[in-house]
């Protein structure tokens, strides 16, 4: 610690003159050491020992389980679609390495582009650099398909950070969730890369292939991949379908989901596979236990709001029950509890809806906010054939309405307390 402190102390005089360098310096210094800011002026202001930076880092820590699982799962799904290594622990490290090579460039691009823009605006406005983006920079890779082209990712992140965050005034001022804005941009701008059946398994955007032009044979020599007949890496084994559970459910109900089989034998979307996340999907959202670990951590440290999580789950379950009661087509008849493990419900609930900046601020508001997300998300998922999944759109929609919800709660409070006076 002393060593790092010395480095910062030596650097400070050099950085002081240039506003950009000083902003960067300040950002890193407060990242390593809790700043000893005290409240000035009259009155008692108690500062919590945990400041914004520490809060943000806890969320990043909570995401690590999803990240590690995602790395392995990218490799596992890739080899599975080629008909190789169906066992879970078979070639464990090869799968892990494949996933890491796929995921690390995504993380690097997400952070370099986002933090670059963030640093630029912070220096220009004389703000301190906050770690708000570290969370977005970790969330964004986890909600992307593993095969997302890096340039698209860079454009989406630039769009999200500039339009959704900096235009509104930077960290803490954004109306929309940054990570979801990046995703929704991709969803509408490049729909083929982020929705449908073809994008959830990594094939040809592997970094080795992209950057170094490594051919299949080299990869094979390294034990990275087997080259199937007729082409490298893009040819899947016969009978393999990229259909997602929700796509199948929309077409044929729960039966169609459980009937999907892998070419290597066994059900593709059995309940246990869905729960453990051994399915194709966005990088971080498949593994429910990993998300639950993060959820417990966030609830224990009181960073995420349990009210939002609970009310969102309630909203989804009640809407699911309502759909079951209506039951006029196969998708409506899918039992409501399976909706909780299909798609990205849990990830959206734990990490997206609970974003403290964009969610409702009042406690009653949080209940309404969460419940409405649960309801609208289910409606979009089940009733709207244009969008396969609803949570992203539902959360962004409610983000917009959160200040309005709060406004009415405030007015209600004022009215109630006024009547006490009168």
């Amino acid at each position: 610690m002393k060593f790092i402190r010395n480095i910062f102390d030596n650097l400070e005089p050099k950085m002081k003159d240039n506003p950009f360098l000083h902003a960067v310096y300040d950002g890193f210094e407060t990242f390593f050491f809790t700043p000893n800011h005290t409240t000035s002026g009259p009155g008692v202001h108690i500062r919590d020992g945990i400041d914004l930076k520490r809060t943000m880092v806890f969320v990043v820590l909570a995401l690590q389980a999803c990240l590690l699982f995602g790395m392995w799962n990218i490799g596992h799904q890739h080899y599975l679609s080629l008909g190789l290594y169906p066992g879970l622990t078979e070639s464990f490290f090869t799968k892990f390495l494949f996933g890491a090579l796929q995921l690390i460039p995504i993380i690097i691009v997400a952070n370099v582009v986002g933090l670059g823009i963030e640093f630029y605006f912070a220096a220009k406005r004389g703000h301190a650099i906050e770690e708000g983006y570290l969370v977005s920079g970790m969330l964004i890779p986890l909600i992307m398909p593993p095969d997302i082209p890096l340039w698209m990712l860079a454009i989406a992140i630039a769009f999200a950070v500039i339009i959704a965050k900096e235009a509104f005034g930077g960290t803490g001022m954004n109306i929309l969730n940054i990570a979801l804005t990046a995703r929704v941009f991709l969803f509408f701008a490049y729909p083929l890369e982020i929705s449908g059946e073809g994008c959830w398994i990594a094939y040809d955007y592997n970094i080795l292939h992209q950057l170094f032009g490594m051919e299949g044979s080299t990869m094979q020599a390294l034990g990275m991949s087997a080259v199937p007949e007729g082409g490298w890496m893009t040819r899947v084994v016969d009978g393999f379908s990229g259909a997602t559970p929700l796509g199948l459910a929309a077409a044929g109900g729960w039966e169609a989901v459980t009937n999907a089989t892998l070419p290597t034998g066994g059900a593709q979307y059995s309940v246990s596979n869905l729960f453990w996340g051994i399915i194709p999907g966005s990088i971080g959202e498949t593994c429910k236990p990993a998300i639950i670990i993060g959820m417990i951590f966030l609830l224990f440290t009181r960073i995420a709001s349990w009210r939002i999580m609970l009310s969102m789950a309630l909203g989804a379950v009640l809407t699911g029950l309502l759909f079951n009661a209506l039951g006029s087509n196969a998708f409506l008849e899918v039992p409501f509890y399976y909706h909780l493990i299909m798609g990205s419900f849990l990830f959206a609930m734990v990490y997206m809806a609970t974003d403290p900046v964009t969610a409702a601020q009042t406690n009653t508001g949080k209940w309404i906010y969460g419940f409405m997300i649960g309801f609208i998300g289910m409606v979009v998922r089940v009733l709207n054939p244009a969008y396969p999944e609803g949570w992203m759109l539902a959360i962004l929609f409610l983000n917009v309405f959160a200040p309005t919800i709060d406004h009415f709660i405030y007015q209600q409070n004022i009215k109630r307390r006024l009547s006490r006076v009168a």
Partner: protein
Amino acid sequence: MSEVKDIVVEKVAKEPLFSNKNKALLKDPLDDNNPITVQVLGICSALAVTSQVYPSLVMSVCVIFVCAFSNLSISLMRNIMPGRIRMIVQLIVIAALVTIVDIFLKAFAFDVSKQLSVFIGLIITNCIVMGRLEAFAMGNKPWPAFLDGIGNGIGYGVILIIVGALRELFGAGTLLGYPILNAEDGSWLASIGYTHNGIMAATPAAAMFIIGILIWIQRSRKPQLVDIS
């Protein structure tokens, strides 16, 4: 008294056709008083017709025509029409001009007329036209009013063409129909994985973002335009 009057008459008679004041009428709407980015008028059609450059261009020409000649006619009539019915008169003038434009387009540019469809007719409700009539033509002489109409039409058109060009270039890879960014199968851009942007091509939301960013750039360049109310 009579002396003062003489001086005024002399001054008016001497004012050249393109005096500085009249030039400003043409120039101001291009930047400092742009109908779209500063007055925030005419957004509806700016979002709707700007998916390509050509329709934006035609739309701009139509609005310039309608704006200029409605300003001219209303300015000519401004002293003889009763104030209470001025809105009706203005609307009739605009509607007549829009009908002329509409019929002209149907006769000579049927394709683009179909593409612009209802938006030509909706020039009647374009706030820029009505706004300039109320704000300028009702209180100014015909020649300045005519210039003001042209200036505002061009100010509107410039933004339309910028938005149309960006949307066509990144949404479809063409400009005025000529391929610039060719991303068809087998092209170089396709081989490095380039795809056209669906937001730019299909949704008017792109136009809203572009106009928003234009406003952002303009106001950070000229802080006096920032209006915090």
